[in-house]
């Protein structure tokens, strides 16, 4: 550990700070995409027309049933080989990662959203209908606020997983935290120091994410909707 602090300060931290931004630029859009897909697909699976709901079930099984690394390889290496007419879709490493993480995360998110929607008792929908609320008002004032609260702990956990599995982007050449760390470790031969600091960066990211989620949960907490996470 000779000169650890000066090595960390001079070499590791500047390199990782660049990687950190890349990671954040990856995680935030992928998380948003995941939540958007999760809400849409979850809603279709519960309320949508049957064929579309079955199609969405298939999507979820596929993305939950295959390794994320394989999915990333597909988006980055395999997709360009699939020609539709004359067009082949080539994604940059960054876009392949965002699409890959977003689609995978969306599959899991839709499970939590679906659970949240299913937890709303049918009777409440009938009560809303009986009061003269329109279907749209029922969804916005009755269904969504409850489904969101029920789904929040699961969706939050999924975002925390996403922070960590974003490190897989480095295997398709994205210079994120992990990618930058690996280059530096290779060139400096100081694997221990580098990867300890990389780990600490992820720990910090996860801690911040968990803290923000906890605040949101607390803000939305009402009797009967206490989160059952312990």
């Amino acid at each position, binding site marked *: 550990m000779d000169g650890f602090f000066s090595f960390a300060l001079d070499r590791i931290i500047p390199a990782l700070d660049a990687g950190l931004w890349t990671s954040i630029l990856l995680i935030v859009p992928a998380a948003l995409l995941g939540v958007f897909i999760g809400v849409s697909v979850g809603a279709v699976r519960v309320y949508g027309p049957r064929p579309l709901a079955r199609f969405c079930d298939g999507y979820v099984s596929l993305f939950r049933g295959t390794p994320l690394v394989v999915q990333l390889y597909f988006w980055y290496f395999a997709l360009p080989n699939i020609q539709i007419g004359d067009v082949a879709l080539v994604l940059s490493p960054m876009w392949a990662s965002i699409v890959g993480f977003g689609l995978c995360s969306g599959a899991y998110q839709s499970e939590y959203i679906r659970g949240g929607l299913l937890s709303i008792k049918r009777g409440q929908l*009938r*009560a809303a209908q*009986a*009061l*003269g609320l*329109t279907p749209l*008002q029922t969804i916005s004032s*009755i269904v969504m606020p409850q489904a969101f609260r029920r789904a929040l702990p699961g969706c939050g956990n999924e975002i925390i997983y996403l922070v960590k599995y974003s490190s897989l982007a480095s295997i398709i050449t994205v210079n994120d935290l992990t990618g930058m760390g690996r280059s530096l470790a290779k060139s400096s031969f100081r694997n221990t120091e580098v990867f300890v600091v990389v780990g600490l960066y992820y720990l910090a990211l996860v801690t911040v994410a968990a803290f923000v989620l906890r605040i949101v949960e607390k803000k939305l907490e*009402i009797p*009967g909707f206490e989160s059952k996470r312990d």
Partner: protein
Amino acid sequence: MDDPVILRVENVVKTIGGQRILDDVSLSVKKGRLKVLIGPSGAGKSTLLACINFLSPPDSGTISLDGVPVNGKSKKELLALRQQVGMIFQDFNLFDHLSTLDNVRVALVKVKGLDKRAATNRAMEELARVGLADKAALYPAQLSGGQKQRVSVARALAMDPKVLLLDEPTSALDPELIGEVLTVIRDLADEGMTMVMATHQISFSASLADEFLFMEKGRIVERGTPTTLLARDSGSRTQSFCAKLSELAGDGHCELAPPSGA
């Protein structure tokens, strides 16, 4: 005796999965009266009530409110109908994520378009009426069953309904909580609210009802005043059904409750 008819149900038929759940049901309710639906479970009482406000649209037949037939194909007419017909459910169906106050207020704001302040005032009035003004800030999870049902009554009343439909309002309650809900219903009847109620509380409703309708297999098989149908020697279905119920409950009587008794 010549009060206007508020609600008229004519020849309603409802089929679910090839089965006739309602078979040519007709009734009419005059202003300020209470009609009581009695009958075994599965007779079609809940379905009939749900047909009246089109939560479960009838296959054929007519529902008229204040003499105007409802066009079930018009979404606008249905929303208007539902504003004027309140409904109380067996299992309360309060909105779990809203406080007691907001449960009553939400439709006042969203459906009636009241501003927040007017809605609050109105909601607090209705909560006071059912004796729950001090529970305005609590959530459904913090209320007893009886309190929940009283909130649901306040929620329906706040919309100024012309008719109130009650589907076994006390059947999901523990015995010691039934009384507080029945008291609210009695007050409503005394104040002249027009109501149709499905219930097994026969001796309670006998003192308030203008007519008993006994349903079985989707038909109204017997109808008449409580006094006539419950007379010991009437030989009516209602009388024997009531006798069976009270035998099961072990309270050993099935007759007209004295007007002041609970």
